[in-house]
């Protein structure tokens, strides 16, 4: 599993960083985000899809609009990886006690 690579690559693009920064101030629709950005609305949608697949933002339907917001888990992949890692490590830690009890 690539260690957070998609999250990092996604934020390497200046337009996506700008979009991500705007979203850090609160949820926004694609139209809101496109205003004031030097790229077309379809381009903004494409950037949002990239950020979404990297686990950095989430979206929901609000009426006919799609509203985007920062994924509270942020830096999605890296966090997911660490989550799984600690899960595995602590399960092994816990097993250490169970084994000892069986021997006693």
């Amino acid at each position, binding site marked *: *599993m*690539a*260690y*957070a*690579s998609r*999250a*990092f*690559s996604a*934020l*390497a693009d200046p337009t996506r*960083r*700008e979009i*991500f*920064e705007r979203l*850090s101030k609160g949820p926004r629709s694609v139209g809101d985000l496109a205003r004031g950005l030097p790229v077309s609305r379809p381009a903004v949608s494409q950037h949002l899809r990239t950020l979404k697949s990297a686990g950095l933002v989430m979206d929901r339907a609000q009426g006919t609009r799609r509203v985007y917001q920062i994924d*509270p*888990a*942020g*830096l999605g992949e*890296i*966090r997911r990886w*660490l*989550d799984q*890692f*600690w*899960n*595995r*490590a*602590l*399960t*092994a*830690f*816990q*097993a*250490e*006690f*169970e084994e000892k*009890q069986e021997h006693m």
Partner: protein
Amino acid sequence: MTTIAISPAPVRRSVKVNAAPPKAFRVFTSGMGKWWPKQHSLNSKSAQQDVIVEPHAGGRWYERSEDGSECEWGRVLTWEPPARVVLAWQINGNWQYDRDFETEVEVRFVADGSGTRVELEHRNLERFGDKADEVRAAFDSPEGWNGGLQLFAKAVAA
């Protein structure tokens, strides 16, 4: 140029173990090499033999391999047996020890009935983002941590 403040939620995990806090603390710290998943090693050339947490604030946190070599992982920030230990995780997104990189792993040992609830929090994860440029090139390296994980995944699937 604007800076972005990304604050991902910390990773939080909690497990219950069948021992009182002093023993749970001891197994977690001085016995780390016994339970730490062996494939999570920074040394790709030699198998992990032990993981050492020196028992004092400022102490080293490192692994020793079977060939005798040592790899730094971080250091002890807070040492409060049997209730709490805070480790500095100084392994960056490139899976290398980096003395200028630091995230915190806090572990609390809370008495719970006849056992202990062990609560772990790994925080300051936004700092992984600072090294983005260095990170990207290394992901597909077959010798890297990533390669180790693929081996691990294969072993699990087998």
